[in-house]
Structures are given as structure tokens and as C-alpha cells.
């Protein structure tokens, strides 16, 4: 066992401090240490995207980052996007447009989609499929995921226009 490190993280706006071995993967920190269980462990080999979180503004697969690398970072998970009483437009759209079946991939899908819509607020279907290529869903066939993201984009753009 290697020496434990003093780690500071800000997760969904809340400061966290703890001692951890540097080899701890961030997904385990989130799920088992901080009890933030939205991000899931799917393949654990950087392919499936179920563990996707946002770290300092980047979409990252948290199974492929050591907690030591994230020391000092700001992390956003699905829990930081919205809850049952204040769903994020993407959460609302996935619900309305049946963008999930079993729901296992959904937290990673939605977290990734928030970054996609930040970078490309009005994406074409092709841009959605390309921008979501790091997230695998074994239920839906993706069609309703694309629809959900398109609907959320329209909703978010309309809200932005109304605010201006």
C-alpha cells in the first residue's frame, strides 16, 4: 500500500476533503467514499461512458482518472445537474421522450450531453451521434436518446431567447 494523500475536491458545489491512496479511481471515490452513486461503473475500461462526469469543464470518464489527478478539481455529476423537484431540461427530455429503458447509461449520457449542448447548442442529428459516441446504450437503439437531446436543445435555446 502506498502512502495516503490528502485530497480536496469540489463535487457538485460541495467541498470534500479526505485521505486516499493515489491509485483510487475517481469513480470509486465518488460512489463508495462520497456516496454519489449517479455515475455508474459499466465496462471500467474507458469505453462505455456510464461513469462520465464533468471535471473542470471537460467530459471525462471517471474510471480512467486517479483521484490524485483530480486533486483540486471541480467535479459535476448527474446529481449536480438537477433533482426530482428541479429536473435539468435534459433530464426532463429523457423522461418525456423515453430516452432510456433500463437507465443504467442515463447518468453518463445526460452528463455528457450537457457538455455537448454547451459546445454545440443547436446540434444536428449527426453532431449528436458523433458527440455522444463515447456513451454506449444497450437498450434504446439510440433513436430516442437523439430525440431527447434535440428536444432539450430546443427547450434550452427557447429559454435562453426568452431571457434575452
Amino acid at each position, binding site marked *: 500500500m*502506498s502512502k495516503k494523500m490528502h485530497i480536496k475536491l469540489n463535487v457538485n458545489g460541495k467541498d470534500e476533503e479526505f485521505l486516499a491512496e493515489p*491509485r483510487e479511481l475517481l469513480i470509486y471515490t465518488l460512489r463508495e467514499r462520497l456516496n454519489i452513486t449517479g455515475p455508474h461503473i459499466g465496462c471500467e*475500461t474507458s469505453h462505455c461512458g456510464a461513469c462520465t462526469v464533468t471535471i473542470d469543464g*471537460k467530459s471525462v470518464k471517471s474510471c*480512467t482518472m486517479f483521484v490524485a489527478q483530480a486533486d483540486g478539481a471541480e467535479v459535476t455529476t448527474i446529481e449536480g445537474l438537477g433533482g426530482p423537484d428541479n429536473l435539468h431540461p435534459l433530464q426532463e427530455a429523457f423522461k418525456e421522450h423515453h430516452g432510456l429503458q433500463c437507465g443504467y447509461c442515463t447518468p453518463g449520457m445526460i452528463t455528457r450531453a450537457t457538455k455537448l449542448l454547451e459546445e454545440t447548442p443547436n446540434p444536428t442529428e449527426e453532431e449528436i451521434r458523433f458527440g455522444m459516441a463515447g456513451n454506449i446504450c444497450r437498450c434504446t437503439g439510440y433513436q430516442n436518446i437523439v430525440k431527447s437531446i434535440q428536444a432539450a436543445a430546443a427547450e434550452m435555446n427557447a429559454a435562453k431567447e426568452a431571457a434575452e
Partner: protein
Amino acid sequence: MIPAAFDYYRPQDMKGVLALLQEHGDDARVMAGGHSLIPMMKMRIADVPHLIDLQDVGGMSDIIVNPDNIRIGALVTQAEIINHGLLSKTAPILREAALQIADPQVRSMGTVGGNVANGDPGNDMPGLMQCLDATFTVVGPDGERHLPARQFYEAAYVTARADDEVMTAVTIPLPNGGYAYEKQKRKIGDYATAAAAVQIVNDGGICASASIAMTNLSDTPIFSEGAGTALVGTSVSKSALDAAVAAMLDDIDPTEDNRGPVAFKNHVAGVILRRAIENAWLRA
């Protein structure tokens, strides 16, 4: 998946990195985005008792487009390559290739330096850099060395970089003419079954120069001088394409693996190179 335990360091400058490499020798490895190294550590293929994270070391995160060359810091990510407007105008093949690497999340962490320094024959940037005649800058205890990409790769994971040296930048001459990076892969996130990088110059309908490199078809990337030569002085007709593909097939040495037998890989290499040359020539 739990990697073997290691000590973690995050030095603030290159002096600190080099001191750690001196102290720990073979037991230390530097890491940029970690998207090649961490999976290998998780599978315990790589054992790294001392892990040196480069993320706080300055001076390696810029893309600088000069009048006659482009300097890309080793910590520049694939996502930054894709999103850099001026780079996409001056050397569009970089963006075209980066878009075919892995997936968006991996591209937000994976770096140019890691991709070229790792020495994995499956990485896309080494062949691309050979096509572009790039120079790699490494720094070690005796200072900087500048190593041509075309002479950098010796075998899988064996390169001209010494263990106590760190890759800091990639410099490429401003590319000319048409370009294409074509890659055949089984699925998103997979390495290439075959990939080809082509830069080609059209002078009044005649090919004035052509540079061709192939990915994942040998234990190193393959710069095929013969394939380029077969096109020069021609109008890139079918017979010239055939000659270029034949020359390339002489240079590669694929092995059978889960992407297919040797005959299939040779076939795909030919299809992909033909497509890349045709595309590049249309853009030239």
C-alpha cells in the same frame, strides 16, 4: 480494477520532473492525460511504482502557428487540436485525424505528447507525424534533443527517447497541398485495422510531392517513401495508385490479431491508402 500501488508526484516544473526521473530511474513514468497508461496500469500490464503527473508543468499546453512551422506542446489534448481554428486552417489533417481517435471524453484527456511518445503501434499520431515530417523535442538531464518522427520509432513501445527524457513538444513544417487521414476501425474507440495519412501537392495536374505513412500495420508506424515516390510526376491515375499501394504493401508487415488475418489487413491497407490518396488529391 485496481492498479498496483504507487507514489504520486505532481511537480510544478520540468526541473522537478527530471529530478524525480533521475532519482527513481526505471521505476518512474511520466503521465499526461493518462488514457494510454492508466488502462495498462489497471490491467497491471504496466507497473509504475512512481507516477509523475505532468499536469502542473507549464509551457507544454500551447499550439503556436508560426510563419513556417507549427509547435504543439506535449500536453495539448486531441480536443484542443480539434477546436483550434487557425490550426484547422493551416494543417487540417491534424483535426481530421484527431476526430478519428477514440471518443469525445477520451479526446478531452488524451494528449498529442502521450500519443506520440507512448510508442503503441495503434496510436494514430505517430504515423501522422511521420507523414508531416515532424520533429519531436525531448528534454533530459543533458538538455534538449530534437528527434525526427521518421526515425523515432524502433519497435512497439521502444522509441529514440531515453528513459530519463520527457517529450515536450512536436514541431511540424507548415504542410502543403491536399491532405487526408483515412482510418478503418471496427467500432468507436478501437485502434485502426489500417489507417493512412497522406499529404500531396498538385502542380498543374501533376503530383509534385507526396508523403504517405501507415498506422497499425507493423510494430511501428510506417513512413512509405516508396508509395510517395510512385505518385510523384504522375497525374495520380489508376496505374499510379496501384504502384503506390504495391510499394506501401512492400513496406508494411502486419500481424494477425483480433482485427483479422494478415491477408485481410493487407487488403484493408490497400483500400484505405487508395481512398486517402484519392481524397487528398481532390483537395490538392
